[in-house]
């Protein structure tokens, strides 16, 4: 009992204000950019930035729920949650709401719920739970079984199609493998094999891609391949970022975004909007914020008191890193355009709530790192 009380007081100490400050700083930048690009849009109902504030509020609740609720208990719910999310993903395929050729949403009243976003968090729970519990001897238990766990979700997500979430799934799996699943020699062997197998894998993947996905990749290789069509996003985004130059065009000054040359400026391309308006100075500031947030998260992982905590932390970190890097990379023309939102900045209810919930889980790990008994 005494120990418990001590723990209670420590829990407060371990609630990291810097961490929360970074999260809300990035969220604020996101809302500002969403406001800038959508403020002159008419339309009924709440404006985008106001809806985003609602998502942030709900996200904050999710954050605290995931913070307070012991992560060991949460992890125990991993398999049921996974089954539920698989069912939802299956439901989306048949009954979901379509938008721009993809069927990803379940309508709930005026809102739309995107299960694939939440599937990422559930996958992190599933894999962390598996690795922390299962005996890990041999390839079967280290690689194949968790791989089988990944497959049904991955399959359903790619079927939507949602290439971005699918890649996130693979990234989370790969991160877990990297951390616990394999010895370093094995990692080397796998890298070697993947390089050798890459052409065949590419063939297979290319064949299974949708037309628009293929065209996006073509457009990535050569943005002038179809500047008015598939290469349009990539080209306009690069123009927006480049035109920001050192100090940017100022708030509302981004002509690329204000004049709608840049499509989806409030969702996947919110970074381009920000980069155009705030320039290289703003972009560096944002990168520093993200790196600081991830650095603090890595500290949490490094000091996690048990493997489950560390694995959960690693999963969340890798998912965040992956999204940030791929999103910025695609807007800057380094990667093909895959629909991955920028965490904490892109408009979107499911992504915002899911990201904040993940961060709550991450802080949960830190909060309990000194409690030995639970």
């Amino acid at each position, binding site marked *: 009992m005494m120990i418990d009380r001590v723990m209670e007081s420590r829990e407060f100490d371990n609630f990291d204000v810097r961490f929360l400050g970074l999260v809300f700083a990035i969220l604020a930048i996101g809302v500002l950019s969403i406001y800038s690009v959508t403020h002159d849009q008419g339309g009924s109902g709440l404006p985008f930035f106001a809806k985003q504030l609602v998502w942030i509020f709900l996200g904050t609740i999710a954050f605290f729920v995931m913070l307070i609720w012991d992560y060991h208990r949460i992890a125990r719910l991993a398999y049921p949650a996974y089954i539920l999310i698989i069912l939802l993903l299956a439901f989306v395929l048949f009954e979901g709401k379509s938008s721009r050729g993809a069927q990803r949403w379940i309508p709930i009243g005026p809102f739309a719920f995107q299960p694939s976003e939440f599937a990422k968090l559930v996958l992190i729970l599933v894999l962390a739970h598996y690795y922390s519990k299962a005996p890990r001897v041999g390839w079967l238990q280290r690689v194949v079984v968790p791989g089988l766990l990944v497959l049904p979700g991955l399959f359903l997500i790619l079927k939507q199609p949602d290439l971005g979430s699918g890649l996130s799934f693979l990234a989370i799996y790969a991160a877990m493998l990297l951390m616990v699943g394999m010895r370093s020699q094995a990692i080397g062997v796998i890298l070697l094999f993947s390089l050798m197998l890459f052409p065949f894998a590419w063939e297979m993947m290319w064949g299974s891609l949708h037309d628009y996905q293929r065209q996006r990749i073509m457009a990535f290789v050569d943005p002038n391949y179809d500047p008015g069509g598939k290469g349009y996003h990539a080209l306009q985004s690069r123009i927006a*970022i480049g*035109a*920001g130059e050192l100090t940017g065009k100022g708030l509302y000054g981004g002509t690329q975004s204000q004049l709608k*040359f840049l499509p989806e400026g409030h969702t996947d391309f919110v970074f381009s909007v920000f980069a*155009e308006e705030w320039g290289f100075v703003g972009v560096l500031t944002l990168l520093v914020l993200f790196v600081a947030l991830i650095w603090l998260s890595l500290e949490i992982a490094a000091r996690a008191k048990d493997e489950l905590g560390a694995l959960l932390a690693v999963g969340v970190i890798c998912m965040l890193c992956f999204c940030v890097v791929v999103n910025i*990379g695609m807007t800057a023309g380094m990667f093909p355009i895959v629909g991955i939102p920028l965490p904490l900045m892109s408009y979107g209810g499911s992504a915002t709530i899911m990201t904040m919930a993940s961060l709550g889980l991450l802080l949960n790990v830190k909060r309990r790192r000194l409690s030995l008994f639970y």
Partner: protein
Amino acid sequence: MALVSSLESDLGELQRRLVILRVGLLLVVALLGLRLWHLQIREGPYYRDLSENNRTRSVILEPARGLIYDRHGVLLANNVPSFSLYVSLEDVKDRDALVDQLTQLIGLDPALVRKKLAVRGAKQIPRKVKDRLTLREATLIESHRLDLPGVMIQVESQRNYPNGATAGHVLGYVGEVSAEQLEKPEFAELHQGSIVGQYGIEKFYDRAVRGKAGQKSVEVDALGHEKRTVVVDQPQAGDDLYLTIDARLQKVAEDLLGQESGAIVAMDPTSGDILAMASRPGFDPNVLSRELTGKQWIEIVQDEGRPLNNRASQGQYPPGSTFKVMMAAAALESKTVSPSSSVHCNGGYQFGRRLYRDWKAGGHGAVDLRKAIVHSCDVYFYTVGQRMGIDTMAFFGRQFGLGEETGVELPSERVGIMPSTEWKQKAKNEQWLPGETISASIGQGYVTVTPLQMASLIGTVANDGVTFRPRLVRSIMDRETGQLQELPAVEKRKLHIKPEYLKVIQEALADVVTEGTATKAKSTLVTIAGKTGTAQTAALRTGPEKDIPKKFRDHAWFVAFAPVDHPKIAVAVLAEHMGHGGSAAAPLAKDLIETYVKFNTPGASVEQHPAAKAGT
């Protein structure tokens, strides 16, 4: 404990591996930073240019064409607002779909629209696809704007001629600059869709009247919708023209010709001011300034009446006996005859084996110069012509401006023919035949003139031998400065003919009206002097005039000036296929001159030339 330690070692291994993540993260972020530095700092200016081009479209602002007034300030040409449909190709993804949409919305000729959109040139400059949209059409387009990216409606000024067909040939018409024109340096600053004068004064003074196009830079969004205007380079309106034409007199002249083909030119011999220049059949410049369909255009061009032909400056006719005015001056000055020396006319002139008849069977008897003019004796002029020879005739003919441009400000003025031995050698590579001199003496054979030349000729005689260059514009108002620039009358030349000889001719011409071939031109209002002419069109002349099909009948000429003492107006009338000048043309000239006198009698309400109002 073993369990704990094993867990701890696994945890330790995991946490050691976090280094890979740290290093990887820093590496990747460094790469991102580098990429962004490259985009924003190194290539920043390049992308900024791209974004500028992305958002701005140049829209050309058509200038308002200068207004055209008559000599008293009556409006002859102005501009009325009109809607034009433009398409900015840069914003059009599917041209064929757009054409279909437009065709469905408003009645368009799809082939024509496609052709207009296909014209090569900068994609950034919007193409004019249709002008003179009705309000309904413009509203329809506007209401479908969201579905029609790149389509713009511009309010422009459209040329308008409030008096319809009146003075159509003088004013000319406007139209889109053609591809061939655009190649020429004088149209260098223009672009496809620019409106330029294509005929008449509109064409001749196009440079002044056209003005200068402006440009606005319009910020557009990704769908090509106008957001705001960024830079405005205001268009400069063209200069206003004040013509020498008197619109009322012009109307009268055109009405006098009525349905007949022909031309009337009235000018002030003391300045060269053309008071009226009528050519029938005519056209309504409003119709021609609009966009015509190919069929409409072909109809106009193939019209047998050739309505587009300005018969006053482009019609070339044998002058017939009006030529004798020039012949008389040439005969006296070249000392071929004296005013008093006479020739016997027995109704024909024998040359070689051929007899050249006089128009009057039986002849005029003894004929001196005065009588020869008054009664238009052919034999007298056969004789004189034969004596002086074709080259002397040509020398004096040129002095009167025959065979050369009068210099009036109209495009494609024709010069007629003042034949000479040299001319025939050049033109036909043949020797001049003596018999041809005899035909030329009475204004037949190779001699051809334009009505404008004949007006100038009779004006020169009236003005004691001084020729003023005929002109249609007396002043130009600079829209920029508001200054009215009076154009000076240009004295073209002074005839080398003794004043007393001209006097003799003037008196004889006065007698033509009082007692000669043009008594039908006799007026109670004013003294008129003139000379009739009948220009043969066909060699076959058998039977009475009324039996001859109209198209083979002769042209009727009358040239005149008035008042005889101080001539203020010189007139040339040509009525095609109307027979004798005395009966067909002389009354028209009389009516016109009388109208002119009435208009210019003190007390008559004459609108003021704005130049007078402005006090300049």
